[in-house]
């Protein structure tokens, strides 16, 4: 028993890798969920205005946005929420398992909110005009607070994925220490700011369709102000957030992110500021198409690179700086009686300790060397690297198309064995398995056509 590692089978997705599967579902979810939390606050604020200033016509807007939200956020948001679990499950089962086992009660509490929220959104939308306005206003405020509570609860878990930020949790294993980690509050501020901005942008899609001119102007101005407030708060929170990141994240941010990311994010930020200022100044010029375009820009050019970066800068870990994204446990965590997997890997290798090694690969022969090498490589590397020439950090490119087994092995026995690369796991394979992996990796480049290899090698990164 002591000689077996807790490694699951691997699901290998060609080219895009499981990381992108997670990224796609995650981005859709973030868009839908932040819109719905932000909108709940918008509803509460506008409805307060409607009741105190006696402007029942404003409720028409809430009704419209609410129905839209039901379709857009609640179908997509509530399915992609568990969808993220499914995606991490098949990409990084140890990662999701680790989070579940540290935070099950937090998630269970979030589920309580999630359930009342779904009931609440139906109540909010369908009871407009069916119950007295004061009671409805209370309902909307409770809904807004409950929606925000789901955010409060998830942010601690997400930011623990980055790191605890201090050593207490490793010693105590306490959920509170893990949850209120170093970057919790900055991250919460960032997401709260973002939810106002995105709800402001999406809200424009509906505001532009309001028939009553005064209502349309009033709502559009309100959305603009909320959006601007969100963007400014977001910028401040971003600066704080960056300060709370671990050093591996800072290194990756500075050296490893694709060059287009920072300029793109700045461009989106600028566009958002211009957009909200414009719509505040000339509310009647806000057309539905603009609002849809703005939402799409934020989602595709803002959120997608941001989500992908957040995931990249967490490398090589998936959670708490103790689980690597290739399923291995990177260190001891005394507070939870968790032991590192690395000594056993260094001693016995993968083929002898992985429970899902086919019997035919347990004993390496001349005939199955390549298959054995492929198995180890996919288990240890495929979570972050595609085995082809294209796609996610393609291995052929990263190795500059090398077919030199000794050279590749030197990399495995040097940098990887000793964990010298800050954004890659320590992968201490024993000598025999380094040889197998190196042979397999070399064969990848041999396979791809000679010309292509040269082209890639000269193009470099």
């Amino acid at each position: 028993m002591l000689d077996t590692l807790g490694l699951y089978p691997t699901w290998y997705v060609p080219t895009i890798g499981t990381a992108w599967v997670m990224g796609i579902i995650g981005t859709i979810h973030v868009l839908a969920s932040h819109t719905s939390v932000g909108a709940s606050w918008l509803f509460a604020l506008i409805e307060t205005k409607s009741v105190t200033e006696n402007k029942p016509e404003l409720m028409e807007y809430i009704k419209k946005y609410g129905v839209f939200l039901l379709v857009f956020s609640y179908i997509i948001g509530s399915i992609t929420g568990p969808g993220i679990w499914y995606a991490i499950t098949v990409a990084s089962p140890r990662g999701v398992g680790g989070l579940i086992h540290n935070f099950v009660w937090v998630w269970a509490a979030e589920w309580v909110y999630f359930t009342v929220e779904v009931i609440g959104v139906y109540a909010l939308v369908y009871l407009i005009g069916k119950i007295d306005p004061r009671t409805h206003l209370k309902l909307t405020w409770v809904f807004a607070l409950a929606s925000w509570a789901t955010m409060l609860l998830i942010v601690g878990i997400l930011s623990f994925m980055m790191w605890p930020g201090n050593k207490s949790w490793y010693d105590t294993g306490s959920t509170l220490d893990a949850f209120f980690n170093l970057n919790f509050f900055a991250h919460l501020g960032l997401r709260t700011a973002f939810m106002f901005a995105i709800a402001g942008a999406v809200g424009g899609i509906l505001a532009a369709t309001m028939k009553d001119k005064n209502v349309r102007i009033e709502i559009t101005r309100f959305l603009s102000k909320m959006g601007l407030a969100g963007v400014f708060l977001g910028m401040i929170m971003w600066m704080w957030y960056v300060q709370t990141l671990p050093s591996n994240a800072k290194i990756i941010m500075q050296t490893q992110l694709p060059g287009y990311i920072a300029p793109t994010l700045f461009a989106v930020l600028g566009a958002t500021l211009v957009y909200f200022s414009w719509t505040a100044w000339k509310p009647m010029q806000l057309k539905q198409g603009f609002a849809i375009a703005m939402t799409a820009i934020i989602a595709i050019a803002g959120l997608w690179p941001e989500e992908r970066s957040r995931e990249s800068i967490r490398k090589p870990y998936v959670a708490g700086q103790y689980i690597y994204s290739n399923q291995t446990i990177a260190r001891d965590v005394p507070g939870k009686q968790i032991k590192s997997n690395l000594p056993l890997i260094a001693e016995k290798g993968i083929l002898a300790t992985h429970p899902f090694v086919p019997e035919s690969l347990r004993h390496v022969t001349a005939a199955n060397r390549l298959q054995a090498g492929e198995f180890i490589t996919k288990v240890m590397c495929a979570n972050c690297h595609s085995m082809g020439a294209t796609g996610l950090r393609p291995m052929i490119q990263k190795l500059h198309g090398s077919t030199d087994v000794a050279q590749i092995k030197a990399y495995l026995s040097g940098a990887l064995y000793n964990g010298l690369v800050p954004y890659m796991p320590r992968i201490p394979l024993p000598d025999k398995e380094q040889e197998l992996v190196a042979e397999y990796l070399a064969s990848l480049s041999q396979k791809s056509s000679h010309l292509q290899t040269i082209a890639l090698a000269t193009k470099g990164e």
Partner: protein
Amino acid sequence: MELDSHSIATTLQVLRDPAGIPSHPIVFQVLMIATWVFHILFVNIALGTAGLSLYAFAKRQTPHWERLSIGMTKAAKVSVSMLIVLGVAPLLFTQVIYDPQWYSSNILSGAWAIGFIFTLILGYSSWFTFYFKNHQGASGTVVWWGIIGLAFFLLDGFIMHALSYQALLPDQWMSWYAPNGKVDMSGTHIHAWQAGRFLFFIAMSVTVLGAFLKAYVNYYRVREDYEADYLTFVNRLGTKIILVGVVAQIVTFTWWLADLPASFHAFSSPLALAIFAILILLCGVSLRQQKVPHVTSYQALAVTVVMAAVIATFRELLRMQYMLPYGYDIETYKVMEDIPSTALFFLTFIGVGGLVGGFFLTAIYKAGRTQGVYEASPTVNKLANSAIGIMIVWVGIFFMVGIFTWVSNTL
């Protein structure tokens, strides 16, 4: 290559999460079963009302059927939302105590697990489209939106079933992962299913639909815009549907039991017998109610809730039997007590679930039964104020604890 039960036992042990679990395993097991009861009930209501709305759509020349089709489309729409949120809780708890089984099963069919998410989005969007288009005098072609929606729901139910069932067969995982010794990491296959078991849950949808219709009648009986004539029609239909469902359930349940390993002695299991008994009881009651179609109540629905609870327990006992040869016992899961987070859940469940959930549900229930505008009674008003109160207190405590913890760990 098949594995012997000793190495399977080892594998299951090491795949357990090394962090252990923060409370006694039975707590999670009970919550898993209890929350799954509501998941499956809403699955049944969703599939049942969706099916009926399509059937009624075909007969929409008759006003009663048209009205029913529209009503059922809406009911299915809400039920799918509910089945999703109510699926999240058992999904969480099953991952706590059965993580080796659930994760292995999901990874071995990775493409299906992810396909489940996207097809559910497509199916639900299609259903929403049907809902927006299915009104009086709707053209015949709109029904395709509904058909596509329901087809995806059924597909998703089947994926759920296969993932649950594959999780019970660890001795076959290796042969799925590496058929003939060749590793297949594509996750594009469904490896195992059990027709009797899956069809049983579909048949159950018929029974639960019948009970739901009778409850629907009882709920709307007080509204003047729901004529007695229509309600009696629905009530009579409900009884008939229950009878059909009960027979289908008896057949499929027998099929399921017959497919189980002989060592389970399934036919003499007390819970299996209890399920047969409930079905026969429901049959008898419905036959009697057929004679008095104007009498309405929530009785049948209550019986189906009990039935679902017994089925959920039976399903869990089966899982324990499947795991017996491998010595997998949730009671041996490493427990690392965590009192604060346990308290967080239970207090939130009682306080927020009770007051906020209670407030929302009461408002919906009362307003739905009122024609025109509902004026909150003093009790409902008090409930509303307590809901606001509990939220403020909750957020306040959250930040106090958070700031204290953060400051003491960071500074």
